């Protein structure tokens, strides 16, 4: 067991030596892989952030019912009961028009202006908390409530969040396509690197075959090389994404302050970072494997 481990470690050491022997070429390869992976990884990170934002907003969708200005107290009471008994409604809150005006005064700092008004421009309103459902059922409920007597208008507050959600789905598909294409590019880069290595080590491979090397023995260093190059490319991609995030957050901080918001981009999570590295290792290994399978058989003797 320890002997087998030592053998593999020896192969890995030889591979790293070879990689660092060709400093510039090796670095350029890793840079290409890093950039190729950082594009989908970066877009994925932005989407995750947008996703978090949407989840916050659309977690508790609300329907605001604005009543007619001349609604009478008993109409309001009857409506309150109707809403409370509705099967699709989880809870109802009533906001009287005087109360709404008071809130407006406090929250906007426009109290002088509002005090100058001759009469309260705001209607009575209900805030309806629907039971959880998809965008369609919520929209149906909104339409139903809008037709209730005494209701002038019904607004689904989270409607735009659902639109954003649809937009995010579109974005996720874009990331998926981009990731697939760039993964192919990564496989191609590794394929070609390994092909060149096999060509330059033609003599060594031939001699090794002649004196009893198994295919596994010959394949191993190339597979390790591909996987190691993939890993370093993945690390490079992670750094590109993380440094870009820090740069963006610096600017975003100033922007968010203008809107009195604490919004910041979150970096890739530990799990996502690990997935990125494992995925790039796998792609490098796959590219090397394809190249070795294609080119080794061409070197005699069988």
């Amino acid at each position, binding site marked *: 067991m320890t002997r087998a481990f*030592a053998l593999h470690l020896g192969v890995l050491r030889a591979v790293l030596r070879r990689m660092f022997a060709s400093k510039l070429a090796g670095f350029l390869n890793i840079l290409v892989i890093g950039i190729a992976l950082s594009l989908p990884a970066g877009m994925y990170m932005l989407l995750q952030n947008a996703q978090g934002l949407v989840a916050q907003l659309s977690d508790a969708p609300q329907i605001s019912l604005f009543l007619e200005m001349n609604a009478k107290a008993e109409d309001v009471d009857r409506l309150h009961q109707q809403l409370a008994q509705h099967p699709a409604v989880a809870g109802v809150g009533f906001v009287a028009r005087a109360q709404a005006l008071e809130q407006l005064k406090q929250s906007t700092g426009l109290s002088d202006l509002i005090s100058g008004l001759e009469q309260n421009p705001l209607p009575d309103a209900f805030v309806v908390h629907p039971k959880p459902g998809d965008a369609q059922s919520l929209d149906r409920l909104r339409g139903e409530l809008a037709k209730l007597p005494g209701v002038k208008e019904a607004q689904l507050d989270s409607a735009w969040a659902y639109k954003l959600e649809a937009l995010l789905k579109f974005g996720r598909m874009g990331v998926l396509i981009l990731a697939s294409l760039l993964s192919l590019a990564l496989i191609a880069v590794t394929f070609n690197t390994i092909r060149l290595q096999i060509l330059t080590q033609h*003599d060594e491979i*031939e001699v090794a075959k002649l*004196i*009893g090397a198994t295919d596994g*023995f010959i394949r191993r260093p190339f597979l390790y090389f591909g996987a190691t190059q993939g890993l370093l490319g993945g690390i490079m991609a992670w750094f590109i994404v993380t440094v870009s995030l820090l740069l963006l957050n610096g600017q975003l901080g100033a922007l968010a302050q203008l809107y009195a918001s604490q919004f910041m981009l979150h970096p890739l999570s530990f799990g996502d970072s690990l997935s990125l590295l494992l995925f790039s290792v796998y792609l490098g290994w796959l590219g090397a494997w394809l190249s070795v399978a294609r080119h080794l058989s061409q070197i005699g*003797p069988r």
Partner: protein
Amino acid sequence: MITFNQVHKRYPGGYEALKGVSFDIAEGEMVFLTGHSGAGKSTLLKLIAAIERPNSGSVLVNNQNVGALKGGALPYLRRNLGIIFQDHKLLFDRSVFDNVLLPLQICGFDHRESAKRVRAALDKVGLLKREKANPIALSGGEQQRLCIARAIVNRPAILLADEPTGNLDADYAREIMAIFSSFHQVGATLLISTHDESVLQDSGVRRLILKEGVLQ
């Protein structure tokens, strides 16, 4: 140890290298394979190492039918053979020491044991002082001896040598033959192809003579 039974070998294009060759080499025997160039000596050696396969007939090594071996079994056959190639097949991107180390790496020997064996093999062929040199800096005779060291480091039961004294002058050739004799004395089976008359004269060694693909 090595048995040929009515072996035919025809290359693509129709050239017949071997025509119905049969012979038997016992364990521990040393045999010369002679004949003009183009007589089929190299082909015969390649059949033993399964570098080529016979079109008909059977080649047995250690009672194994080499011609019928699957690809995955070939490496283990070749580990029992020490092959000295006509064109040496040395690797010039590494030292003398590392050239001899390669067969041991392939078999998965641990590092300390390998180093001991490599030095023993280099000592036997008189190259111990050159272990750090690049093979390209060695003379023709030294390269040949390096090739022998690589073939014996794994202590194979069978040694195959293809024209080992090909381009060497008589003194070097005698040296090389002396090395082979010493392996014969410790029990190895040797098959040495040569057309070097000076080597053949002074030995009472059995000879297989090939002429245009037929054993005389």
